[in-house]
């Protein structure tokens, strides 16, 4: 059934949107990520204007993250204090990001920055995840002991002022690194239409040295706050949230997320990470490809009215 979207002003198939929402929601629940990095490019390929795709997708990410964070919180796998600190940074980042995106659009450079961000961040993180997890899967197959984790925490994490206790994460560190991380992810969420889980999760593990058990839940919690805020800001500043589009996506999304969360217990963590790394890497390369291919038409219309 084709449906005309009131803000995007294009006609799309409603069934396909619900199905897409469900598939991305499943992946989101399976890996404990928002899934925006998958959905935003798909929406762009479907012909949804970039501004509307990015803004409406923030809404969809908020919904599927809310759907899965509740089950993590029941298992006491959310560090609300750390999530709050990250979200405070995220709020500042989202504010900045919405303004930066506005300015980039006026300069006609939004496409370039979106493609470059996907290529760099997704390519880098996907590649690293893939190498690291394939390595540990291979070591397990050969019966070797898992590589020793460097447990020594970097000095700078402790030398900085404004130290706060995070009991759930068993940490006593300065709030400066998580706030900066939050700002960075907030900017990305406004520009790329993603929650930023694919950056937050590795950053929490490798930079903040949080215990693996609370990482995913905490990341989802902060994503909900940042994307909700980004969504309200995009609606208020740019009038670019399409409520019909977001609702169709989240119908499938919240259900898919629940099935995904259940399925996740059937896989090994390393195998899941390898698969996620592969998906992230492919998506980054695919989005970045446009920068290298000679365009069919040397001219491009860069948004008219809005």
């Amino acid at each position, binding site marked *: 059934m084709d449906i*005309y979207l009131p803000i995007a002003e294009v*006609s799309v198939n409603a069934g396909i949107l619900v199905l897409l929402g469900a598939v991305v929601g499943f992946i989101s629940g399976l890996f404990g990520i928002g899934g925006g990095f998958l959905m935003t490019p798909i929406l762009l390929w479907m012909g949804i204007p970039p501004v509307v795709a990015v803004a409406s997708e923030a809404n969809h990410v908020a919904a599927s993250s*809310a759907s899965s964070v509740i089950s993590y919180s029941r298992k006491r796998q959310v560090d609300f204090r750390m999530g709050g600190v990250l979200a405070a940074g995220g709020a500042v980042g989202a504010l900045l990001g919405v303004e930066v995106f506005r300015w980039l659009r006026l300069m006609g450079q939004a496409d370039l920055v979106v493609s470059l961000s996907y290529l760099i961040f997704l390519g880098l993180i996907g590649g690293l995840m893939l190498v690291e997890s394939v390595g540990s899967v291979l070591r397990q197959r050969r019966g070797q002991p898992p590589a020793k984790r460097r447990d020594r925490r970097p000095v700078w994490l402790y030398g900085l002022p404004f130290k706060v206790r995070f009991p759930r994460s068993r940490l006593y560190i300065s709030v400066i690194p998580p706030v900066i991380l939050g700002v960075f992810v907030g900017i990305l969420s406004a520009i790329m239409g993603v929650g930023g889980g694919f950056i937050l999760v590795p950053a929490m593990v490798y930079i903040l040295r949080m215990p693996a058990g609370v990482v995913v839940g905490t990341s989802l919690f902060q994503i909900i706050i940042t994307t909700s805020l980004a*969504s*309200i800001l995009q609606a208020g500043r740019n009038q670019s949230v399409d*409520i*019909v589009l977001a609702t169709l996506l989240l119908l499938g999304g919240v259900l898919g997320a629940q099935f995904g969360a259940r399925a996740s217990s059937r896989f090994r963590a390393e195998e899941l990470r390898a698969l996620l790394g592969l998906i992230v890497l492919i998506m980054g390369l695919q989005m970045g490809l446009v920068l290298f291919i000679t365009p069919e038409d040397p001219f491009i219309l860069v948004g008219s009215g809005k």
Partner: protein
Amino acid sequence: MIPPALPPPAIVAPEPGPTVSAALTDANVRVTSAFSGAQIVLYGAVFDPETRPSDVVVIVRGPDQPIRIARKVRVAGLWVNSRPVVFEGAPGFYMAASSRPLTEIASFSTLRRLGAGIDHLPMNAPEEERIETRYGVRDVVVSRLGGDYLDWRRAVIRLKEKADLYATDHEGVRFVDRGLFRAEIDLPTSAPIGEYQTEIILFQDGEPVSRRARTITVEKAGLERWLFLFANERPWLYGIVSVLIALTSGWLASVVFRRR
């Protein structure tokens, strides 16, 4: 919106010269959630006491929409957009249908004066222009785009044609019977909202002898209209409502699944 009242029918005796008359099957296009473009049929008649060869040109002009266009340039091996050029005065939708190719119907200057045909659209890029004195002539308009100006203009038209927003149809006006003609106006899904000025011009011997104007109104209706107004008039409330919907449905799904 109430359509503007039509002028009262003229009571005076019909003019002696040839006249053209036309009507639309649908002067009001409602954009609802089921909208997937629209086809409007324009039909009309040529009244001419004598039988001179007649040509009819139908021009549909949608609401003006500034166009931002960029050129892909290669920088350090990467294809990136140049600074965009803004064209003003270009309509969001434009169709020129005629019974013969326009160049056979009238001269270049007549077409230019009437703004008939895509080549005669009065669009330009004012931000790129500056006025200077050249060869002692004052107030000469110079475009920063220089000789490429035509490339840019042609690119605008090409991209708009690709999106079905601009069209030229040399056989778009068909005479179905003596003096009776019809033309079809295809509005794509992406057609802008607003008033479309439709002009029907009768040409004889290369001169416009009679003109008629009709208006098509494209407007959002029903839920689409309500949501669009909500998003634009109360943007912050709209944003909060959409986030509440998202969070509530996420929470509901997790509650429902927990019970199972």
